[in-house]
C-alpha cells in the first residue's frame, strides 16, 4: 500500500464521528497544490478545506492598485513588479493596459532587477512595487539595503506588503467557522514555526505547517484532524526539512531595519490593524508615495464580486454569481481570478467552469 493511501485511511479513521470540520489554508501555493493533487477528493465528507487570504495578489486593496497605476503613469517612472500584479484590475485599468498605452512597466523575477536597471538608467526614476507577505518583504528590504549601500538615488519602493499573524487574528476570532489551520510553509521558512504558536495558544486552533507535496499536505491534515478529535490544539511542524522553529535572522534583521507595522486595507476584508508594513520614517526618501507626493485614492466598491467572502472562507468560489461567467482567468473581475494562486483561478483551472 502506498503512503498516500495509508495516510488517507488514517485521516478517514481519525475523522469518523467528528462534526463538519473546516480547515483553512492561507497560502496561495497550498491552494494551488491542493487542487493539483486532488486532495479534496481524498478527504472524508465531514472534512472541508477552504482557502483563506493567502494570495498576496488577491488581498492587495484596490486603493493600493490605484496608487501603483498612478505611479506607472508618471512620465519619468519605470515601475517594476511581480508578473502576477500586471493583470489585477482596478476599475477599467490594469498595469498591463497602461503598458500597452506606453507606460514603462516591467516584470521582475527578482526585486534586485529593479536595482540593476536603476544603475544602468540613472535618468529614470525606478520604483519597486512591493507586495506579498513575510516571504517577499525581506526581498524588498534587501533591495533597499543594497540601493543604500551602492548609493543609488533613483530607486524607491511602493510598499503594499502585509503580515500574516494579525490578519489571522482578525479573521479567526470567534464564530469564524474555521476549526483548524494549515499554515503556510514558505512564510514559516522565513518567520520560523514559532510565529504560528499563537493559533493554538491564543485562539485554541489546531495548526500544522505543511509543505506542498501530496504526502506532506495529507500528513498535516491528519495532524489537524487528530488534534480536532482529541480537543488538544497544538502547533505541528509537518515541514521540518525546510521550516525551523526559529526565524531566518538575517531576513528578520533586514525587515526590522527598514519597515514598521501600519494599519492596512485588505481587498474584500477591509482595514486590519497593524497588518501592513510601511517604511520607517528615517527612510522616507525611499518611499515612492512620498517621493512623488501621491494622494491616497478612494475606490468605490462597485461590482458583485464576492472576493471578500471567498477570502474569508465563507463561500466556495463557485458560489459567486460571476464565477466562470463574466469572471474568468482571461478576463478577471476580481483579484482571486488573476493569480494562479488565487482561489477562484485554482478552482477554474482544476475543477472546470461548469460546476
Amino acid at each position, binding site marked *: 500500500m502506498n503512503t498516500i493511501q495509508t495516510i488517507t485511511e488514517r485521516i478517514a479513521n481519525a475523522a469518523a464521528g467528528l462534526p463538519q470540520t473546516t480547515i483553512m489554508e492561507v497560502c496561495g501555493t497550498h491552494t494551488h497544490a491542493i487542487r493539483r493533487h486532488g486532495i479534496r477528493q481524498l478527504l472524508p465528507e465531514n472534512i472541508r478545506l477552504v482557502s483563506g487570504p493567502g494570495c498576496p495578489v488577491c488581498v492587495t486593496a484596490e486603493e493600493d492598485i490605484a496608487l501603483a497605476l498612478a505611479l506607472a503613469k508618471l512620465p519619468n517612472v519605470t515601475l517594476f513588479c511581480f508578473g502576477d500584479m500586471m493583470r489585477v484590475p482596478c476599475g477599467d485599468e490594469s498595469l498591463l493596459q497602461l503598458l500597452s498605452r506606453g507606460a514603462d512597466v516591467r516584470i521582475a523575477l527578482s526585486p*534586485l532587477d529593479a536595482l540593476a536597471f536603476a544603475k544602468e538608467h540613472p535618468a529614470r526614476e525606478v520604483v519597486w512595487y512591493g507586495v506579498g507577505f513575510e*516571504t517577499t518583504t525581506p526581498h524588498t528590504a534587501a533591495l533597499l539595503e543594497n540601493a543604500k549601500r551602492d548609493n543609488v538615488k533613483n530607486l524607491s519602493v511602493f510598499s503594499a506588503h502585509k503580515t500574516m499573524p494579525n490578519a489571522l487574528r482578525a479573521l479567526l476570532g470567534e464564530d469564524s467557522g474555521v476549526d483548524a489551520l494549515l499554515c503556510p510553509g514558505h512564510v514559516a521558512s*522565513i518567520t520560523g514555526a514559532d510565529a504560528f504558536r499563537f493559533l493554538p495558544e491564543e485562539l485554541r486552533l489546531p495548526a500544522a505547517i505543511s509543505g506542498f507535496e501530496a504526502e506532506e499536505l495529507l500528513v498535516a491534515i491528519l495532524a489537524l484532524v*487528530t488534534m480536532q478529535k482529541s480537543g488538544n490544539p497544538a502547533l505541528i511542524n509537518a515541514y521540518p526539512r*525546510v521550516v525551523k522553529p526559529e526565524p531566518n535572522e*538575517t531576513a528578520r534583521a533586514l525587515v526590522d531595519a527598514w519597515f514598521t507595522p501600519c494599519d492596512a486595507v485588505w481587498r474584500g476584508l477591509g482595514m486590519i490593524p497593524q497588518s501592513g508594513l510601511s517604511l520607517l520614517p528615517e527612510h522616507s526618501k525611499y518611499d515612492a508615495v512620498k517621493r512623488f507626493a501621491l494622494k491616497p485614492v478612494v475606490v468605490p466598491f462597485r461590482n458583485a464580486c464576492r472576493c471578500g467572502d471567498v477570502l474569508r472562507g465563507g463561500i466556495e468560489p463557485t458560489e459567486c454569481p460571476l464565477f466562470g461567467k463574466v469572471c474568468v482567468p482571461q478576463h478577471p473581475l476580481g483579484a482571486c481570478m488573476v493569480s494562479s494562486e488565487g482561489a477562484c483561478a485554482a478552482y477554474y483551472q482544476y475543477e472546470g467552469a461548469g460546476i
Partner: protein
Amino acid sequence: MCLAIPGTIAIIEEETATIDYGGTTRRASVRLLPDVAIGDCVLVHAGFVIQKIDPDEGAELEALLKEVELL
C-alpha cells in the same frame, strides 16, 4: 508569486549564487541566507535563497506519522 523552488548551490560569488535546478541553472542572491555552501540544497524564492533544505525526506515522513500518533 509565492512559489519557491528547490535547487542546489553550484557556485557562490560574493552575494550571488548559481543554483542548479536539475540541469538548468539560474542566479539567485544569498543576501537573506549568507551562511550557505556549495552543494547545499536550498529553497529559492523570487531571486533569493531563503532557506536550507534537509535532504532526508523518507525518514522524515515516518517520524511525522509517529509524532501524529502521540497527539
